[in-house]
């Protein structure tokens, strides 16, 4: 329950050309859950190790509520890390595992018993105190691991892909549980994941990490619908980019002219993007259209995905629950609604 500030953190390992983290800065408000999203090797896990104190940054500072914690040893920081694997101590019972942090602090047996029972209720596994970790399922193990982290009332909860080894149903269930408990207890948390859906569903804000830096940070909805740069756009699944000259609300591309909302801005080479879900496909469309040929279509259940060739460009469009599919090879109109076309800054 603290405001966490990471200031210009850098970390490099011997033998590596580019630093894992390069002047990395991020602020997480009290009670907020921020997720860090990025390809593997983008420094996500390293960052968590720096915050817990398992590793030390080359430069920069980490502040909890305005105070530097770099000189505090890892076991006194109050930043608890939960790993991809549960790491329950195999020789201890569930109760002893969860109570580990309290016992270390010198809590009495009675207090531990009461607190463990309370937290087992919270994670939805009451009455399993006496069991051994080996007799729990993967999902249950992760829940116990979460309980063990929460029982010490961490200043900051760090989650390092805690759900990536679980199957989809268990995973969704746990995502909801973590989100609910984090809200209830008002814990500041940082979640590392490479799953876009998980990041969007669980976090207040999400940060995209690329090459050791924050490429973008915003609310999930904003990043998903209007990413600021083409790099970020690609990461959230946008691959239609229209380049051209912008003049009086018209984007003049090599494929044809499109109306865009520009608030009067003029540029010789602007790039506009649009989400595949916002592109419309059909024969009766009239506004803001280009004509193309259906190259491929794929039925995905919730939507149909078309690959449409417009001159040299291939556009991916997702149409939600259509009544019929447009066959391969058909000439079709593709509409780019002006309200969904947005400019990229970089």
């Amino acid at each position, binding site marked *: 329950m603290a405001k966490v500030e990471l200031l210009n953190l850098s970390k490099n390992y011997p033998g590596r050309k580019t630093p894992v983290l390069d002047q990395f800065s991020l602020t997480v408000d009290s009670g907020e859950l921020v997720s860090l999203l990025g390809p593997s090797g983008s420094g996500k896990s390293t960052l968590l190790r720096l915050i*817990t104190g*398992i590793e030390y940054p080359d430069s920069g500072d980490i502040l909890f509520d305005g105070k530097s914690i770099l000189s505090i040893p*890892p*076991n*006194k*920081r109050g*930043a*608890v*890390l939960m*790993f991809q*694997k549960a*790491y*329950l*101590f*195999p*020789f201890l019972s569930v109760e002893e595992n969860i109570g*580990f*942090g309290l016992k*270390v*602090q010198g809590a009495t047996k009675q207090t531990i018993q009461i607190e463990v029972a309370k937290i087992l209720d919270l994670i939805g596994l009451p009455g399993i105190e006496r069991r*051994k*970790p*080996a007799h729990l399922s993967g999902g249950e193990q992760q829940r116990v691991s979460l309980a*063990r*982290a929460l029982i*010490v009332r961490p200043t900051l909860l760090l989650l390092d892909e805690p759900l990536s080894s679980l199957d989809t149903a268990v995973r969704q269930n746990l995502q909801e549980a973590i989100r609910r408990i984090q809200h209830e207890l008002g814990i500041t948390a940082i979640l590392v994941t490479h799953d876009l859906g998980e990041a969007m569903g669980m976090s207040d804000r999400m940060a995209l990490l690329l090459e050791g830096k924050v490429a973008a940070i915003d609310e999930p909805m904003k990043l998903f619908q209007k990413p600021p740069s083409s790099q970020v756009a690609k990461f959230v699944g946008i691959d239609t980019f229209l380049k051209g000259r912008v003049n009086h609300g018209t984007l003049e591309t090599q494929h044809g002219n499109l109306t865009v909302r520009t608030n009067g801005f003029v540029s010789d080479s602007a790039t506009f993007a649009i989400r595949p879900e916002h592109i419309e496909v059909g024969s009766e469309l009239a506004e803001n259209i280009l004509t193309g040929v259906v190259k491929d279509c794929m039925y995905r259940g919730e939507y149909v995905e078309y690959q449409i060739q417009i001159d040299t460009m291939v556009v991916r469009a997702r149409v939600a629950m259509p009544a019929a599919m447009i066959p391969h090879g058909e000439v079709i109109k593709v509409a780019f609604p002006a309200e969904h076309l947005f400019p990229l800054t970089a």
Partner: protein
Amino acid sequence: MKKILNAAIRFFLYLVLIAPLLLFGVYAFSERWFFPDVLPSTWSTAPFLRLFSDPKTVGGLLTSIGIALVVSLFSLIVAFPAARTLGLRRFPGRQFAWLLFFLPTVVPPLAVGMGMNILFLRLDLAGSFVGVILSHLVPTLPYTIFTLSGLFANYDENYEYQAIVLGASKRRTFFNVTLRLVFPGLIVAGLFAFLISWSQYLLTLLIGGGKVLTLPMLLFSAVSGGNPSTIAALSLLFIAPPVLVIALTARQLNQHGNAIKEQY
């Protein structure tokens, strides 16, 4: 057919392993046993009683146990950090370190013993318990390091990190997490060291110089002396502690090992 062959091989192995022990047993409890008889004509516990009333034998037994215990403890203390580093880290010179640790198993013990003898004479350690214990560490360390490093190759340090971020001090993490995770391996490695030290004759003779009398020393002189009953009784005494220790720890070791295996 395969079953029969299996049983035959089993029976043969048991026979080879147990027959000498049985023979020792029969010898050790025989009073009179002359040629045409299949079994001794008179049975007696006299050889054993004689053994236990002899202060030299009792002293030898205690000396052997004491030395073997101290040697296994020291072996573990020295081998632990070495094995942990070799098992968990990759660093330049790692292969060389391995080679260095394994040299004692390659170099003839006599060469090592003679060299140490001269060195220990200069250091005034020859003929002392400390000297014998140090010399026993030479053949035990390669085995303890090897056993423990195998353990650490499958070890996950994140268990320790998890304990630390939950608030445990380094000390507590070491005793309550690390040691408990590797405990079965520690016992196995300790047993190895114990057995190697227990059956050590040459180094004890060279460094102890006849002043440190362990069971193997007594056994050797008894064998050259020639009373079969005494030799048999002494041999049984020599075999008993290791067999006892292994029998006692095997069960518990198995359970503990399985519990950890399930986690991985």
